[in-house]
């Protein structure tokens, strides 16, 4: 296994170096870096040309200039890690450090959500093949797959951001909207949940009433102004999560797992008030992360001690429950500062941002900054998700369908395993193998999409770095961009190989 990884890594590094060489040469030949000076009519034209030539080593042939750049990366120019300077004589290393953060946040968040949503939706459509739900999702994913991202981005800006901000000024949901949404939710759930007509009718009724009830509550309690979940909401959700996660992960028949999940959910409910009223005021970003890790670890421990003979699945279930319940509580805490955020002088009641990656000059706690971060990420993330969600659903659906037709699934059914065990244990794991490859492969595509998305939303991220560099035929910023994106692509391919080996023991042998 170790030799396999090392061999892959070395091969990847060589491929990456070759790719950077190709990219450097192509960028350098994309135009004339002195064009603006030559066509300009500055009195000291020749001196300016001379100065830029010296600054960017333009007198060295491109094929050799690459090695100056490569030397800079390995610190051979004596400045440590050095990516050169731009046409305007700014050090690229500094620019990259500023740009990389916002883009990586965007890409990571968008990919994570798209993968999780895409796989869940893909799996459910495969299990309900040729239902109305399946046809609906198939059509939607084809539609999303055909959408130009910049077009979606402009539409989102217009309708989601500006429209929603207008809506927030006087948040009223009309009664017929509530009825329509409730019936729609009922129909969707009714076609997802299997069973006889009677059971479908019950599902429909429950989903319709629940959605209608929640929407009515939102309407009556002025929820959009003061959004909250509250202790009752958190308690119901936490217990629901405990049951739901256990049902999928180990099955409700495993009493230990159910008990452990409920204990974790109970602890979450108990610490709700101390957290909201006291602990959350003393958190900064890193203690928040630490707290999240601790939550998962403690939940895992609870599962481990209550697990009985076969501890691992129980501990895993408890850890997932702990993570989700913690997330709900944190969400409620974020919502608590929403009102302050939306009404603050910098936001002026229009919270969904259309431009930039953060509100300049905003002051406040971790929670206020968190909300600011969310509202800025919302639109670009939705745009990126729409595009990549489509391919993930199609892939997971195809992959699960293929697995479900295998002989070993027949065997599993024939020996009387429950449907849950067949789907989760036997089919889902095998269906994940091809999905892992696609995800790794798709990262490059998402970053490419991010270049366009960033431009529409006016982020000064890596897309801007790339475009400015390319417009001036300046390889240094372009290469800095490629160093990160290409490096990510290589890294994710490597991770995919490892995941592969984790999922498929046959690969570990060779």
């Amino acid at each position, binding site marked *: 296994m170790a030799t396999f990884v090392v061999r892959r890594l070395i091969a990847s590094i060589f491929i990456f170096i070759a790719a950077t060489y190709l*990219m450097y040469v192509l960028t350098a030949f994309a135009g004339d870096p002195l064009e603006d000076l030559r066509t300009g009519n500055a009195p000291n034209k020749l001196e300016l040309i001379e100065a830029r030539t010296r600054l960017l080593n333009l007198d060295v042939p491109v094929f050799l200039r690459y090695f100056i750049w490569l030397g800079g990366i390995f610190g051979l120019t004596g400045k440590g890690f050095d990516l050169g300077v731009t046409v305007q004589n700014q050090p690229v290393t500094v620019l990259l450090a500023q740009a990389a953060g916002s883009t990586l946040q965007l890409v990571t968040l968008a990919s994570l959500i798209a993968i999780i949503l895409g796989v869940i939706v893909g799996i459910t459509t495969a299990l309900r093949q040729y239902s109305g739900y399946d046809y609906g999702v198939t059509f939607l994913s084809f539609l999303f797959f055909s959408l130009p991202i*910049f*077009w979606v981005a402009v539409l989102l800006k217009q309708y989601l951001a500006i429209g929603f901000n207008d809506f927030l000024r006087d948040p009223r949901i009309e009664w017929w909207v509530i009825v329509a949404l409730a019936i729609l939710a009922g129909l969707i759930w009714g076609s997802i949940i299997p069973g006889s007509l009677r059971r479908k009718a019950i599902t429909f009724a429950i989903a319709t009433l629940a959605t209608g009830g929640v929407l009515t509550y939102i309407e009556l309690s002025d929820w959009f102004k003061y959004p909250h979940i509250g202790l009752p909401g958190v308690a119901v959700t936490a217990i629901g999560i405990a049951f739901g996660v256990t049902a999928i992960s180990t099955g409700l028949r495993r009493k230990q797992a159910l008990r452990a999940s409920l204990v974790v959910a109970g602890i979450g409910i108990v610490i709700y008030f101390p957290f909201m009223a006291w602990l959350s005021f003393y958190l900064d970003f890193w203690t928040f992360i630490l707290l999240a890790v601790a939550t998962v670890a403690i939940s895992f421990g609870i599962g481990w001690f209550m697990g009985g003979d076969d501890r691992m699945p129980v501990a895993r279930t408890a850890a997932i429950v702990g993570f989700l319940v913690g997330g709900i509580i944190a969400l409620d805490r974020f919502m608590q500062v929403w009102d302050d955020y939306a009404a603050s002088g910098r936001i002026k009641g229009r919270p969904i941002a259309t431009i930039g990656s953060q509100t300049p000059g905003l002051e406040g706690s971790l929670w206020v900054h968190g909300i600011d971060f969310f509202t800025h990420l919302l639109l670009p993330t939705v745009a990126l998700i729409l595009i990549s969600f489509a391919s993930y659903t199609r892939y997971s659906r195809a992959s699960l369908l293929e697995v479900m037709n295998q002989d070993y699934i027949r065997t599993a059914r024939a020996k009387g395993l429950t449907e849950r065990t067949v789907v989760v244990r036997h089919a889902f794991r095998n269906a994940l193998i091809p999905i892992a490859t696609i995800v790794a492969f798709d990262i490059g595509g998402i970053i490419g999409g991010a270049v366009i998305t960033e431009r529409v939303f006016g982020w000064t991220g890596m897309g801007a770095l790339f*475009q400015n560099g390319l*417009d001036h035929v300046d390889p240094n910023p372009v290469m800095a961009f490629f160093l990160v994106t290409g490096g990510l692509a290589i890294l994710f391919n490597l991770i995919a190989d490892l995941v592969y080996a984790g999922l498929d023991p046959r690969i570990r042998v060779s």
Partner: protein
Amino acid sequence: MSSIPPPVEQPGHHEPGVTENENAIELKEVAGLSQGQIVRRRFFRHRGALVAMFALAFIILLAFTSVGPQFGNWKPGGWWQYTWNVAVDIENGGRPTLSLFPFSIGNHPFGQDEVGRDIFAVVMRGTQQSLMIMVITGLIATFIGTVVGAIAGYYRGWTDSVLMRFTDIIITIPVIVIGAVLGRRFGIQGAQVLAIILGLVLWTGLARLVRGEFLSLREREFVDAARVAGARDRRIIFRHILPNAIGVIIVNSTLLMASAILIETGLSFLGYGVQAPDTSLGKIISENQAAFATRPWLFWWPGVFIIAIALSINFIGDGLRDAFDPRQRRMPTDRALRRAKLGKIDPNLMDASPAKKRDDS
């Protein structure tokens, strides 16, 4: 802007988990038909693909007859009263005159831009350019991908290593990035050149798939038979193996075209694609995105055409995949299993034919 086409399986693969009974029925349905006939039959049963095919044909006809094609100095003109690069007087504040109730087209069905160009004509010209780029790019990428994949998969050894490492190098660079860099240099030379450039960078995924297909097909008996009969490598590759891999190639080249049109519009949007005075669907959107609040029709129509084209091609690709490869067949549902348990129908006969799966919906 994903660089990956939707999933594709290899055709001609024996279905695991299919009983003799199911196979017998499947065979009966296709008895006496050639491969082409079988594929055609299955394709025409895919309603979405059929509709998409007519939609695409309609768009192509509309785009090329209305304002007429233009290659260099040859411009035959079309039946539409305005041309795409000439401004006329602004009527009705530039708003679209198209109305459905009562149906009338009016002088400027899609409206006019701020200088008075007829947007219908502009969008038609953009559609022409985008379609042409799509076809040229698709053909070039399919050709290169097939040849590279075929040679790598057939010869294996160091040929394979060299070609596949080269593919890896290209694949490391996101398509939109390498497209932008090349478009910056060559985009000014016209849409055809841009199309060729895109074809030169989009072939990598197909090459990998074709290589995999060749690796497995070259071990089959019919290849041995051909070799024993004295066929040369070239004949084996192009006459014996390639026809068996045609399903993968056709399906993927359709999907390649769908992504080509999205990449072209994306590049034109960024300013590295088709350059003025010519136009393309992406360029129209890019030029007019600031005017969205005041003249939204400048923005809606090109977008609608991009989506219509890409959606049609994706549906056609899906239909072709179903036609070439019936592997994503129907699983028995819970209800069907329960009915089978009660002895109402023989479970072996259930959904035996993949081709029928869309008829019962």
